[in-house]
């Protein structure tokens, strides 16, 4: 038994209240430590709130900010994932998730995919990150950190697992919507996320730790429902929807080995094949090479040519 005790901090950050949120993080780190936690995970933008708009620039911090160092100092004997607005030296603003361990900031993930459609407007205010790296942790496992929308793109969990992550961590501020009675747990957003996270856990034979915030900002309700999924794709723990809380979950990391030997999907991945075909597709999509898989008369972006009968001759 290789026990990992995870504490899911399903909190409702105060929008724009950095100091207040920092205090809350400190208090929950203490509480989690007292409960024997090894890893404490806070949601996306837990230190700032989500719908920041022009507040983003006012609340952004540099990675050498003393407040972040102070928070890191509270992680002696602990690992924590916290999230905030990071300002780079050239003044780009990123949605960042940082791994703090044993008093130090050891890794920063900048959100890669910024949804700017529907109710989202992130790209207007933030720059996308360019790096995706699994990170070795003091916990004795590789961690793969992503922020919310990052996990709505297939390559992200796969790359993290191939890079050495055994525990995938997604921190989110997911707005709940679609209350159709036919949805699992009565919420469309929850059904989608639950499906995705179980699939990623199973396909990467990794643990998935999903921490989503709760609370209200403007019109939006964040739905919580944080989860830990085992490498077999089954939920180990599901936090309630909408309830604020610090939820402790205990997992056996030996499950990763068992799963990966029983179902060696990760062993059988073909990244060299992917990179070869992706290289071809990228060149074709850029118009630098003819589309090798398309019908002769197909338009760019679509392999299939229109039926001959639909062609109008002048």
């Amino acid at each position: 038994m290789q026990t990992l005790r995870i504490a899911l901090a399903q909190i409702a950050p105060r929008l724009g209240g950095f100091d207040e949120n920092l205090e809350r993080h400190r208090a929950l780190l203490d509480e989690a430590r007292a409960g024997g936690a090894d890893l404490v995970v806070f949601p996306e933008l837990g230190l700032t709130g989500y719908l920041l708009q022009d507040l983003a620039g006012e609340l952004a911090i540099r990675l050498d900010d003393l407040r972040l160092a102070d928070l890191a100092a509270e992680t002696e004997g602990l690992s924590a994932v916290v999230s905030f607005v990071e300002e780079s030296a050239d003044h780009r603003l990123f949605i960042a998730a940082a791994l703090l361990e044993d008093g130090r900031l050891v890794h920063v993930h900048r959100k890669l995919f910024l949804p700017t459609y529907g109710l989202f407007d992130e790209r207007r205010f933030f720059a996308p990150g360019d790096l995706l790296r699994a990170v070795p942790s003091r916990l004795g496992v590789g961690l793969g950190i992503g922020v919310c929308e990052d996990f709505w793109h297939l390559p992200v969990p796969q790359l993290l697992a191939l890079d050495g992550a055994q525990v995938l961590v997604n921190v989110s501020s997911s707005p709940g919507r679609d209350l159709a009675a036919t949805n699992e747990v009565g919420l469309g957003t929850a059904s989608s996320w639950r499906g995705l996270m179980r699939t990623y856990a199973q396909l990467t034979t990794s643990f998935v730790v999903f921490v989503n915030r709760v609370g209200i900002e403007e019109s939006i309700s964040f739905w919580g429902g944080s989860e830990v999924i085992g490498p077999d794709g089954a939920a180990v723990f599901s936090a309630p929807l909408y309830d604020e809380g610090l939820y402790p979950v205990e997992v056996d990391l030996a499950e990763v080995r068992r799963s990966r030997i029983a179902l060696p999907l990760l062993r059988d991945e073909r990244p060299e094949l992917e990179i070869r075909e992706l290289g071809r597709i990228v060149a074709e999509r850029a118009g630098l090479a003819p589309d090798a898989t398309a019908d002769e008369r197909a338009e760019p972006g679509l392999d299939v040519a229109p039926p001959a009968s639909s062609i109008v001759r002048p």
Partner: protein
Amino acid sequence: MTSVAFELPTELAIDTDVARRVIGEFIRGQLRQAGFERAVVGLSGGIDSALVAYLVAEAIGAERLLCVLMPYRTSSPASRTDAEEVVRRLGCASELIEITAMVDGYFGADGAAGALGPEGAEASPLRRGNFAARMRMAVLYDRSVTWRGLVVGTGNKTESLIGYTTLFGDSACAFNPIGDLYKSQVRQMAAAMGVPDEIIAKAPSADLWPGQTDEAEAGFSYPELDRLLFWLVDKRRSPEELVAKGFPAGQVTWATRALAGAEFKRQVPPIAKLGPRTAGIDYLYPRRRPGSTRT
């Protein structure tokens, strides 16, 4: 659960437990962010405001809710009875403020001219109805000061989409907990929350004149209209696709026009862009942020 019968199109059925939870958090969140603990609801006797009163009472406790009844002299007495029943069942505070003197003071009554002069006697029922709605708004915002509570909106999604609202009248509010629920969903929620059966069962009316009903005016029923709007707006179907799906072409045309024609009612009025930074355009802040709370 209630036994009252109402038509709920299958695709519109929502999980009312989740909706109550979300709306409860929404009401508490809106008040907390604004630094208020209490709320004011204008209670007409209809289902929308009754549901909102129930939701507010559940979210913050009936003792923090003030319901204001604001009948005009031609308002249906049954509406007042129904509104009083809601107040009785919830056990919340209430006030009765007749707006007759305010409306008649402008348009005139019984042969006597009002502030508007002789022209007032010629005013159409629509003008009178809109004016009455704005007088109710003025009363609610005044009572919100004395009660130290925010005005809670009671407009539903159907009437907002087709523009069946009075600008700066019944649509005016600090926040609206039911503005994303179609009328059929309002009925489903009302039934789940135990709103009196008589209120759920009666024909919806703006009560602009005696005997008026929404459905007679629009020419089709709320479940029909709700379904049509749901597929048009939420499910992004084109008018042609709706007709192919079996919706009557006349209804599709009417609803599509009403939807487009009411766009202006759902948005903040545009400000002429002149300066470097303009509210709502390139000066974008949350409505409530640190420093905005009343102390």
